[in-house]
């Protein structure tokens, strides 16, 4: 049987997506080399990598709803790459923080992680991402079976931590983090089994009005 059009396009889509995901990093490197990161280049890198980490995490979370809405499987085929790129940007973000922002002054870093809730939350999100990145391969999916799905539900918690990290670090203007929070809320709302929930509630009501 001939392969479906979607499947024929998929390898190309992957290449394009790979380039698209790498582009923000490329731009940041380009700006760094050409000296166009602005008056505070370290801050620009820290914010740029943080922004893209969170954006890609949310795009990753949009793939399952997208499959349901379109009835296509391709969003699921692209999901792993998106998730790994989210991890990549978190790793860059952490590197910028440790190396350029904190200048590898470990005592102040430990201080930050312990004393400053927005850093603690970001750090926990990073730690939780590690096992997900490691088990993202086909082999691990097979080996873990149903437990793989359970494990990877941690991404919901990670995304919430990422948004909370952002909400807690801004000084006064909550607009941007609230935009991310709204998007995340919508994406998580797709995960709620509304029909089962409705049935349950109806069941309760039936139960109460029974003989």
């Amino acid at each position, binding site marked *: 049987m001939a392969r479906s059009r979607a499947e024929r396009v998929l390898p190309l889509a992957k290449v394009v997506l790979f380039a698209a995901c790498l582009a923000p990093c490329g731009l940041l490197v380009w700006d760094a080399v050409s*000296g166009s990161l602005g*008056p505070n280049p370290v801050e620009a890198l820290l914010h740029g990598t943080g922004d893209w980490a969170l954006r890609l995490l949310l795009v990753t979370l949009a793939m399952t709803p997208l499959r349901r809405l379109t009835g296509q499987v391709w969003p699921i085929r692209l999901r792993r790459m998106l998730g790994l790129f989210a991890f990549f940007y978190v790793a860059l973000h952490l590197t910028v923080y440790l190396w350029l922002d904190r200048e590898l002054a470990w005592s102040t870093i430990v201080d*930050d992680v312990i004393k400053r809730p927005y850093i603690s939350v970001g750090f926990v999100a990073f730690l939780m991402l590690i096992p997900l990145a490691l088990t993202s391969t086909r082999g691990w999916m097979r080996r873990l079976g149903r437990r793989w799905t359970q494990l990877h539900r941690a991404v919901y918690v990670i995304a919430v931590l990422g948004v909370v990290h952002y909400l807690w670090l801004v000084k006064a203007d909550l607009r941007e983090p609230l935009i991310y929070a709204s998007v995340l809320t919508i994406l998580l709302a797709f995960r709620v089994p509304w029909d089962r929930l409705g049935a349950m509630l109806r069941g309760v009501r039936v139960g109460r009005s029974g003989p």
Partner: protein
Amino acid sequence: MLIKRPSDIASSEITPPEIYRRRREFIKAAAAGIGLAGAGPLLLGGGSVLAETSGGTAIPNVRPSPFSTDEQRTSLDDVTHYNNFYEFGTEKSDPAANAGTLKTRPWTLVVDGACEAPGEIGIEDLLSGFTQEERVYRLRCVEAWAMVVPWVGFPLGDLLRRFKPTSKARYVAFETLLDPEQMPGQRRSVLDWPYREGLRMDEAMHPLTILATGLYGELLPNQNGAPLRLVVPWKYGFKSIKSIVRIRFTEREPQATWNMMQPDEYGFYANVNPAVDHPRWSQKKHRVIGEGLFARKHETLPFNGYGDQVASLYSGMDLRRYF
């Protein structure tokens, strides 16, 4: 990456002697064989010093001041494109982009409260009635970055005395213009507008405390708080309120915007103090704007290095409590 492109360098007119001196220092340093990494900040600085004109209006007869530091000045470009001025947006680049809507002429400053001669004074009278001095000060932001800015201005005390504060005047309160038409950032309630700040009377009368009318020899660019702003170099930058329309002598400690909003993060005094962390970041070090990506941070000094002049104002005070 560290070298300014020629297009960034304004075609300057006459080179002031001090810049000759700096250039010579730079050449000496380069000749001394400092490696590229070490010379990076110097290269940047070299370019920055050249770009000293903005095409603005020069302030005449500006006198030098012994209070000026001879540290490397932050480039005019950075001083005017990295600003916290939430009246024009919350990003650092917003004020430069949006402050064009601010009308700084005519501009009237009202001075009232606990004084014998309350009144008003226009910006032109402020410029002509007070000897304008250049004060090159370190500026330390509460966000752990710093600049060196050649302000033009005059001591706040000189102005305050004209209005004859009474014995009840223990504090001085300041207010920024409130006009969402001119200040688009005020259309959202990010802060409790108008921006307010305050000083204790002795802080306000201290010779280091100035009202600035300009920088780099010219009238203040809008994004830096035109036409009149406070500069208190030993306090975090948010104390140095911009675009002031009102000064009031008060008996009680006046309201201060950031302090009202987050009292545990922004104190009324807000003296630069490496020993008291902001709850969300350390204040022990700061980054100097313009030094580039790989420059090391600098140790923050108590009172931003002005301790010899101002520490006595706070003798006997617990600076951890009154942060």
